[in-house]
């Protein structure tokens, strides 16, 4: 903890405030000023220039009637849920590595887990896009070769999805019904290097005696996970969950590069961030985009507040 300090000493040490100045200036100019400007401009019709027209709450009224925006919340909701499930492989990986006997292998695997980070994320994005290509893509080649395609076609006949057909390459990013599934399988097997390492750090705090006791009780590996390991990484999991939800709600880069500013066919890939971005930088309705941003902020703030209030995990 920082040392308590008397008034007199604080006065004497005033220079230490200077340490904070650069940081404060930076966040003031590049975070707080834009934030206030967002609030201010959300009451204007503003197309980015000097001219603006005060229109009161009209922007917010338009948001209420903005079907695209509301639909984009459904999409992002699905993606948030999917991303939660996508945390499982990282946890699984961490537990697998943690349970290995050989310390040397534990270390080697850590290094190997980090290895994919050397590929810039944009490169990964483009390679995945290439995987999804209907005619040349790896994914369709794979599904054809393994016969999974035939299975999907049968399922389609059974459930009348109308997306998979025999002898027709699957247009992953072109069929409205497949856009969200594509975004969900994106990045398989969803292992985040930093996540794995952090879960491992959490797992390391488990004492030997705990395992020994478990061993004596004849606990199987699944029980071991739920009773010993999971509770210990609960804090990490919860916080990465919160950050993941916030991160997902804000994301739009992937959708923009993959599907374009319009969110792809049927606008199925439209997410709130992308809608805001296109409203500003394609339609030129900067004021409305600010209102959308403000709305998004309030939404995220409420979620975080509720989380802190009701889902608090005791340390």
């Amino acid at each position: 903890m920082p040392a308590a300090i008397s008034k007199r000493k604080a006065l004497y040490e005033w220079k230490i405030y200077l340490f904070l100045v650069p940081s404060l200036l930076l966040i003031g100019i590049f975070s707080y000023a834009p934030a206030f400007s967002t609030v201010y401009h959300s009451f204007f019709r503003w197309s980015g220039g000097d001219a603006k027209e005060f229109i009161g709450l009209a922007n917010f009224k338009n948001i209420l009637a903005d079907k695209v925006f509301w639909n984009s919340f459904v999409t992002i909701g699905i993606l948030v849920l999917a991303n939660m499930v996508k945390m499982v492989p990282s946890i699984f990986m961490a537990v697998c590595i943690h349970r290995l006997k050989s310390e040397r292998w534990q270390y080697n695997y850590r290094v190997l887990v980090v290895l994919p980070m050397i590929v810039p994320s944009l490169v990964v994005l483009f390679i995945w896009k290439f995987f999804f290509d209907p005619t040349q893509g790896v994914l369709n080649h794979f599904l054809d070769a393994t016969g999974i395609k035939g299975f999907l076609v049968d399922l389609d006949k059974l459930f009348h999805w109308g997306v998979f057909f025999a002898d027709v390459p699957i247009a992953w990013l072109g069929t409205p019904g497949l856009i969200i599934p594509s975004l969900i399988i994106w990045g398989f097997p969803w292992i985040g290097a930093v996540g794995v390492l952090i879960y491992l750090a959490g797992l390391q705090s488990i004492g030997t005696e705990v395992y020994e006791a478990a061993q004596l009780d004849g606990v199987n590996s699944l029980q071991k996970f739920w009773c010993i390991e999971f509770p210990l990484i609960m804090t990490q999991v919860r916080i990465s969950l919160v950050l993941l939800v916030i991160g997902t709600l804000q994301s739009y880069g992937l959708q923009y590069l993959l599907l374009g500013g319009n969110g792809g066919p049927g606008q199925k890939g439209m997410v709130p961030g992308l809608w805001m971005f296109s409203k500003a930088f394609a339609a030129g309705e900067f004021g409305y985009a600010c209102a959308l941003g403000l709305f998004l902020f309030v939404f995220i703030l409420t979620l975080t507040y509720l989380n802190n209030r009701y889902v608090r995990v005791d340390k």
Partner: protein
Amino acid sequence: MSNSTPSSSTATAAATSTTASTATVAAMASTRRKRDWPKHLCILALLAIELLPFYMMMQISMKDNHMFFDNPWVPANPLRWVWENWIYAGRLILPYVANSIVVSVSATVGCLVVALLAAYFFSRYKMPGSGFLWGLFLLLMLLPSVANIVPLFAVLKGLHLLNTLWALIVLGVAGGQVFCIYLLRNFIEDIPRDLFEAAEMDGASHFQQLRNVVIPMSGPILGTLAILQFLSNWNDYLMPLIVLRDPEIFPIGVGLIYLDGEYVKQWGRIMASFFLASIPLIIIFLFTMKLFVKGLSAGAVKG
């Protein structure tokens, strides 16, 4: 890394975690006598899929379009490797790489210096008002950056920073503040108080205390933060896309998007460019991988 969780955010996860005790790995290993091979198999399978993009990138970069469509999976015969791809990619991508190095290095160094100062302020004394100021920083964690993009653009315009590399550097420095200060503060607070007091006795100023006490003690966390910041700057493409106009100052992200926009794709060239775009990261990781892994997993990131 293909996980959609921003890598930096997961790191914070551990920040507030319960204190990790020093590892008792050796002792644990002896307690688990079950055979390990199914685990090895699982891990290797997952890793193999995870590294597939890397493999595809390498082998396709040596093929021309024709070879690629004939045989997409297996590497081409080394005698027929198309080195032209690499020459083309080098000419195309190296200028972007250079710009990215300037931005990422400057932004990372700047961010760590500024954050270290601020973290020192918060962790050294409970100065009057520091609670409120801390709140100011924490609130930023909730502020969705996406909501800010539009007015941020106006701010940059007002500062005449549009279409300059300065804009990206400054944004990189400002954007990493909260995350770095948060982690650094926790770390500095754990440094034994006696060390500071001893230094103070010797008449060390705050700067000297920072240099002689804090920096040597926080090597691993600084290393980890540096790599995370470097990565996030290196991988950024949305901000440069909005801020920059002239191709001669594009960073790598925008360069790759432009490459993707060509009308007839030469996959070999594209993959060679992708590979070249990764080389700086490969070098950094090659030399600092151990530091990074150690920093993250041995409790450098903790609460």
